[in-house]
Each structure stands twice: as structure tokens, then as C-alpha cells.
């Protein structure tokens, strides 16, 4: 046993490890890229893709998602935390159960997943051309530290290496704002992410290209299609929350403590407006058919708890609409739901009833667009 810890033996192990690593690197160069096979069972619309595949801008999954949405004349719903799954259904669930709408709504959402995190995808992927996108704008992102460039959220969803790689010149105006939106990451992080990005690609040669080439059914197991069972369980409509479980005086869930709130509105910050402007222009340049959902804010709670901040949050919301108007972007105005009782679960997330009310507005818009 002691023998295995001797310098000579350890050095031999070291040689084996180094040779194995070198072999692993060289062989990876010869593994052909795996492409999703064309077959009828994969003609449907993908519901979503894994967070990591989007972060890595993994073409196998991003291409499949985008082409499947386009092929089925569906929509891709993008949003922040309010667009995450809700126990009694979110707005896209209601849209997916609506039989009058003959299209599917795929979803990508997560706290902090604002426009900036989609720039690499939109810039680098040719399949975005002609894609129909619904983008939820939550006014909470004009509040607190969210109102400024946020390195934590950025790094969670985007690799700076991929961001820089995808950052091809679009036009002078867009390029300038793109550069301004990139958080100031230190040199060490950037070098590390660049190396990590390339190691990931190398790793994918085995875990993806080689593995799926040998057994394509493994690839099928990694895909998330629309789950018809889940959709059939969802109600067609949603009533206002029960007053025993809801605080109608403050327009939040009964168990939510409104005083735990710390996101004060920052109407003076131009960061989100710049980001939104960039997204609109980028989508125009790249041929993305994007429709924004101007989300509501909890006006009743502001009026009762922090009346002094109401003008500020109103200004944040108005600024959002102003940018949309100035840039000539299509949008569905849900800000009138701000003062509707039962819509909010807390300061920034809607209830299922709120989701239902948002769905009604989107439904009208989509039906009108289809009939046009």
C-alpha cells in the first residue's frame, strides 16, 4: 500500500493522467458534431430548455427550441421571476390551455433574466429570424439594486466569454449600448470564464456529441416537450383569491409581510431603459417579432404602505411605456392591473388570478393578431 505513495509510482500515475488528458483532448477534435435528427416524433414544440444550455448558448438545444417554436407557429415567452411556474397556473399555462389559440407558448424564465441575458442568443443564432416572442417587463427591475447592472444575475445566466464571442457588430447605436450593458467583470473572472467556456465545449464533445451519436434516444430524454397531462389539469379560468387567504387591504397574500420589502424605486437610473431600448433595436435588426408585456406594479400596497414612493414607481412604469412608444415596439399594456385587487401575491409577483387577468389581455392581442 505504501508503495503507491512513493514518488516514482506517483510520477508514473502522473504520466498516465497527463497522457489520458492529452488523449482526451486529441480525440475530442475528431468527434463529429451531433445534430438533432429529423423525425416525426420531434416535430412538436419544445416547452423549454435547460438553464445551462441557454447559458452556454448550446446550439443543439437553442436551435431545436427556436426551430420547433417557429415550425409550430408558436410563441416563445421570456420573463423574470414572475414568469416562473405557479401552483395554479401562470399566464402562459392559461394560454396553452386555451383551445381558441391554435399555438403553443414555450417558456424561459428566471429571476433576473432580463433583456441583457438574451443578447448572445439573439445576436448569434440565425434561427431567431421570424421568431415570435412575448417578453414580460416587470417594473420591479426599476427598483433597488435591480435598477442597475447586476453582476450576480448576469453571471448566473450569461457567460461573459459567450457574450463577447456572440457580440458581433450590429449597428453603431446598438453596439454602444451593448458595451455599456456588460457588467464590469474583473480580468481574472473573464479569463476564467473564457477557459471554462472552452472546456465545456470540449466536455460536450463527449457528453453530448459522442454520447448522442451512439444512442440518439438519450438525446430525446433530455428534451422537455409540452406535457399534455399537466395542461389538462389546469383550470380554464381563475377566480379572485379567497379572502381568508388574501389580504385585500394591502393586495398581497395573507402570509406575506409587506414590511420585508427593500426594493425602493429608482426612477433616476437609466440602465433598464437603455437595456430595453437595446433589446428592441436588436430584435428589429435580427428580425425577431417581439411583443412586450408591460407588467403591473402593486399600486394598492404602495398607496397604503409607502405612499411617498408611489410617484417613483409610477415614474418607473411610465418610463418603460415611454421607451416602448418611442421605439415603436409592440406591447400589451397590463399596467392597468396595478390597482386591481387580488392580482398580487407580494410586491412584485402576481397571483394565479393576476396571471389569469394578464392571460386575458394577451389572448385578445394574439387573437387579434391572428385575425389580422
Amino acid at each position, binding site marked *: 500500500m505504501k508503495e503507491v505513495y512513493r514518488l516514482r509510482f506517483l510520477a508514473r500515475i502522473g504520466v498516465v493522467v497527463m497522457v489520458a488528458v492529452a488523449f482526451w483532448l486529441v480525440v475530442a477534435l475528431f468527434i463529429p458534431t451531433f445534430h438533432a435528427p429529423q423525425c416525426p416524433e420531434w416535430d412538436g414544440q419544445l416547452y423549454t430548455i435547460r438553464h445551462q444550455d441557454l447559458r452556454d448558448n448550446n446550439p443543439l438545444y437553442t436551435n431545436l427550441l427556436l426551430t420547433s417554436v417557429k415550425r409550430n407557429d408558436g410563441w416563445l415567452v421570456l420573463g423574470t421571476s414572475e414568469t416562473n411556474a405557479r401552483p395554479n397556473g401562470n399566464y402562459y399555462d392559461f394560454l396553452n390551455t386555451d383551445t381558441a389559440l391554435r399555438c403553443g407558448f414555450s417558456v424561459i424564465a428566471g429571476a433576473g433574466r432580463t433583456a441583457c441575458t438574451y443578447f448572445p442568443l439573439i445576436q448569434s443564432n440565425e434561427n431567431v429570424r421570424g421568431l415570435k416572442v412575448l417578453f414580460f417587463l416587470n417594473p420591479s427591475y426599476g427598483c433597488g439594486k435591480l435598477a442597475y447592472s447586476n453582476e450576480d444575475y448576469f453571471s448566473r445566466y450569461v457567460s461573459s466569454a459567450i457574450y463577447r464571442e456572440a457580440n458581433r457588430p450590429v449597428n453603431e447605436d446598438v453596439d454602444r449600448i451593448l458595451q455599456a450593458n456588460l457588467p464590469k467583470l474583473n480580468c*481574472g473572472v473573464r479569463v*476564467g470564464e473564457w477557459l471554462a467556456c472552452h472546456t465545456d465545449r470540449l466536455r460536450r464533445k463527449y457528453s453530448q456529441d459522442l454520447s448522442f451519436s451512439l444512442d440518439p434516444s438519450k438525446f430525446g430524454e433530455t428534451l422537455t416537450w409540452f406535457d399534455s397531462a399537466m395542461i389538462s389539469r389546469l383550470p380554464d379560468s381563475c377566480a379572485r383569491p379567497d379572502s381568508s387567504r388574501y389580504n385585500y387591504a394591502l393586495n398581497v397574500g395573507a402570509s406575506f409581510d409587506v414590511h420585508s420589502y427593500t426594493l425602493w424605486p429608482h426612477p433616476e437610473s437609466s440602465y433598464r431603459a437603455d437595456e430595453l431600448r437595446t433589446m428592441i433595436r436588436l430584435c428589429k435588426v435580427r428580425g425577431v417579432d417581439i411583443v412586450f408585456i408591460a407588467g403591473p406594479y402593486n399600486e394598492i400596497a404602495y398607496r397604503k404602505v409607502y405612499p411617498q414612493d408611489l410617484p417613483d414607481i409610477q415614474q418607473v412604469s411610465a418610463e418603460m411605456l415611454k421607451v416602448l412608444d418611442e421605439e415603436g415596439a409592440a406591447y400589451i399594456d397590463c399596467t392597468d392591473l396595478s390597482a386591481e385587487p387580488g392580482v398580487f401575491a407580494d410586491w412584485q409577483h402576481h397571483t394565479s388570478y393576476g396571471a389569469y387577468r394578464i392571460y386575458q389581455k394577451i389572448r385578445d392581442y394574439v387573437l387579434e393578431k391572428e385575425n389580422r
Partner: protein
Amino acid sequence: MLFTDYVLFFEILLFTLLFAGCRSLFRKEGLNHILLLGGNVLILTHIVSPKSLFLLFIVALLAYGAGLLLRKRHSGILLSITLTLLILFFAVRNYPLVQSWLGSWWTDTLGKHFLSVEKIGLSYILFRIIHWLVESYRGTLRTRNFLAYVNYLFFFPTFMAGPIDTLNNFHYWMSHTHVRLNVRRMLAGVGRIFYGAVKTLLVVPLIKPYAVDYQMLIPTFGPWGAVCSAALLYSFYIYIDFSGYCDIAIGMGGMLGVRVPENFNRPYLSDNISEFWKRWHITFSTFLRIYVFKPVIALLNRTFLREYRMVVSVTAYMVTFLVCGLWHGSTLNFVFWGLWHGLGLSVYKLFTHNRMPKTPTLVRKISATLFTFLFVTVGWVFFNYPVDKLLIMLKLLF
């Protein structure tokens, strides 16, 4: 674990290659120290916050000054004061009980700065500083170079969990510019890291879920079987995990040209508890022997107890292992664990006192090894479960 993310992994890899290259090209000790200091700062800022690192640096700086004074003046009082302050610093940072004794005025003033020092690696820094102070006082250190001292304290492979090196050993390997970082030593480092990676990344995840929680095994083995199996698995888990980490630290040290001391020597093959502590966490038990056990013995020998050698030994064992238990954690179960080993060593001492060692037969050797292993395994139960969980476990069994 050092390889917590890609960024850190690549930084370590790049730095190691750069440092190894520079060491073989430029044989200047000062230059090597400056480069190593840069690498230590770069890598450690991924593990602890820059503020925490800065505060630790201030503590290290003060200790350095105290060490120089001790070397010059050889003052026992100064040594006692600095050691007390250091241990107080550690106790205040690590033990909520001590923080509560100090009251709210403390938390509102200096306390918030103390608490902003992260716990990661703190106790190992403390050990190295104690070593610096005591050995400066004794005059046994072969260097007082500030860069060597700082690099010794903040050497990234051993920063988080040892092994606890000595300054003389660290200085020896750093100053030997004629010892070229040859390819074999680098490759051996890679091999050692590979061992560590296999242990911690491959074996540990397989046994950890069952080792740390006996409840997962109840459906298969019943209460007694679950507790016993989990305890046995925990013995292997803690050894494989910690020795795996040490393999990585030693391998990385080797790649940087510093031969970090070994920390384990097949501890579960020990045939008595005294032997076990010579083979388990060797650098820590050596530290305890030099800086706690021997001083306690010396202190007791100055009192009337010197006539009762067994009392002196037993008291020294109990005190040493109480300190050992308290160092491992601030909860009561660690005290029990420490006292369990203190008791074991005392009983062993009582039985072997004044007896000539016999050459053991194979059967006796195997029985003794098994018994020692079981004794240590029972100790790990105290180590693994807090008191409330221990009580639940006892209720389940009896």
C-alpha cells in the same frame, strides 16, 4: 475543496505552471516568494472575501511583530499575552456562546469587524501563527523573512484544512533554489492530485449520504443495523474525504516545489488508540502534543501532582482532547468526542503503564486493531451527530 469552480481550477492550474516555470528559470528566493504571494492572494480571494483576507493579514502582521519581539527579548509574559489574545480572537469569532458573553456593545462596535472574518481556514492560520510565536520565543526558527512568513501562513494548497506545516520545512523547500522542480516531482504532484480527486469526487459521493444520516438505512437494516452501518460508513467517509483533500493539498504543494508533510498513515490499522493518534491527522496531533500536551505536563509537574505520574498523564490527555474537541466544533457533541478519546488514551496509558511491550501474536494484533477501529468508530458517532440527534438515536435503539 479547492476545485470549487472552473475559474478557480484554471487559475490554480495556470498559476502552478507559471510558478513552476519561474522557479526553474530564476533561482532567486525573493522573486519566488513575491510570485507565490501574488498567487496566494489571487486564489484565496476566490475562497474568502478580500475584506476577510485583509483582516487576517492585519492579524498576521501584528503576530509577525510580536514574533520578532519574542525572538529578541525572550519574554514569557509577552508570549502569554499574544497567545491569549489570539485564542480570544479565535473564540470570539467561532463560538456564539463567547459572543453572547460579550454582549451587544461588542457586536455593535468591534464585533462586526471580527464577525466579517470568514471561518474558512481560520483555525489553521491560528495554528501557524501559534507555531510562529512559540518557536520565535524558543529561537528554533531558521528564518524571519516576512515574505516567507506570509506565504507560510497563506499558502493556498494548505490554507483551508492543512496539513499544518512548520515554517522551517516550508522555508527549506522554498529556499532550496538548487533543487530544480524536476519533471518527476511535478508528475508525482499530478498523480497525488489524481488520487485525491478519485477519493473526494468519486468515492465520497457514493458513501456520504448513508454515512452522515443513519435514517436512510433504517428501511433496509432496521434501527440497530442502520446505526451500526452508518457509523462504519462514517469512519470510512471521514477518512477518505479528509485524506483525499490532503492528497490534493500535498500534490499541489509538490507541484509548487514545497513538500507538504503527510497527514495520514493508514490510521485504521493502528492496534491501539495511542498509535491511532500518531497516524491520524498527524500534523494536528503533533501540534497538540507540542503546544498543548507537553506544556500541560510541564505545568502539572511543577505542582504537588508530580508525585502522581498517572494523574498528571490522565489530566494532560483529558485537557488536550477537550481542546481538540472544542477546536473541531462549538457544540456539546464535539466535547463528548474529545473526552471519549481522552478517556480512551487514559485507559490505554493505565493498562500499559510500567509494562514491557510484548511481541503480539497475529490474533492479538488483529483483535487489537479491530477493537481500536470500533472504539474510533463509536467516537465518530459523537462527532457526526449533535446531542439532540444522539438522544433521538438512543431512544430509537433502547
